[in-house]
């Protein structure tokens, strides 16, 4: 597991103008909580955080005022375009603590049914797993080479690395190889065209008599 170093500084709780100025200066507001201690407000270097996210880090090493501590990246809020991070939630953790993370699934191989025209569809790109902080996996490899047409891989079938466990529904579909649809695009269009409903939607609670009264 990669642990990226992020530079930060303490900050005061401010209004939105203060946060706007903070972001304009290349920093991001963040809050640290957990272990039943008082929450701390800090500002992180935006550049360092983006680098950590690019590396796929779950835990960051935060350097504030010469002191370095490790925190779990609990949540990142983005702007309306889901493009730029706006705020970060950090959780205090110890190396032996068990945490729930969204582990990235790494699908390996070419499905056997792909040659027959099947389309590989991913239902879950991440899997929520419980593991110790020191044992957070970079990614969980899922072998898809045996997958035939109309077959699926379920969450219970995924081989988890040592020290991780999945407590969700084992019958949850992770990925599937869907068969080709029986109709051509033109046929599909024609059918969709034929399935067109009336020109106007039905008005709830209105009868034909009411409509007649309207027109008069």
């Amino acid at each position, binding site marked *: 597991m990669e642990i990226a170093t992020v530079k930060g500084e303490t900050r005061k709780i401010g209004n939105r103008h203060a946060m706007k100025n903070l972001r304009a200066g290349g920093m991001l507001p963040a809050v640290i909580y957990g272990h039943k201690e008082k929450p701390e407000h800090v500002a992180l270097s935006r550049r360092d955080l983006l680098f950590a996210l690019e590396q796929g880090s779950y835990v960051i090493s935060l350097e504030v005022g010469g002191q370095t501590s490790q925190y779990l990246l609990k949540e990142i809020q983005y702007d309306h375009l889901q493009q730029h991070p706006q705020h970060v939630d950090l959780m205090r953790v110890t190396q032996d603590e068990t945490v729930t993370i969204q582990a990235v699934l790494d699908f390996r191989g070419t499905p056997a049914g792909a040659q027959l025209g099947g389309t590989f*569809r991913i239902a879950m790109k991440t899997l929520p797993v419980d593991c110790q902080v020191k044992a957070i996996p970079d990614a969980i490899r899922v072998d898809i080479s045996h997958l035939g047409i109309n077959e699926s891989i379920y969450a219970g079938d995924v081989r988890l690395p040592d020290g991780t466990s999945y407590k969700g529904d084992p019958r949850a579909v992770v990925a599937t190889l869907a068969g080709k649809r029986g109709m051509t695009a033109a046929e599909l269009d024609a059918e969709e065209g034929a399935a067109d409903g009336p020109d106007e939607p039905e*008005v709830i609670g209105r009868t034909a008599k009411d409509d007649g009264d309207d027109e008069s």
Partner: protein
Amino acid sequence: MPANMPRRVKWRKQQKGRNRGNACRGNKVTFGDYGLQSLDNGRVNSRHIEAGRIAATHYLQRQGRVYIRIFPHKPISSKPLETRMGKGKGETDIWTALVKPGTMLYELSGVTEEIAKAALLRIAHKMPVRTRFVVRRNER
């Protein structure tokens, strides 16, 4: 059935309203791997939506899957041509979806990024708003 209007409505006509602000929901790639995101406020009507769907499905040749993330809920009325003013509100002309900056318009799955970009660009040409191509981000 194409997404061209609701099946049942409580009222036949609506007031114009205003379309302001940014999308705070429906702004993530949820169903597919790639998405087309609106950058403007605007109205995307049922003809735009259908034109976009056709453009993408014809390009994809039954590869992958196209998800339409918007639905035209709002009726827009208009008066017939060469009609004098008055005599009440016009009849419903078209159904539209109100979109805001951030709204995910379409999503694609089961294709490579290159093909998805080309397919979504074809949809983008049919849209009355500026758009951008986005890739799904893994949630934490």
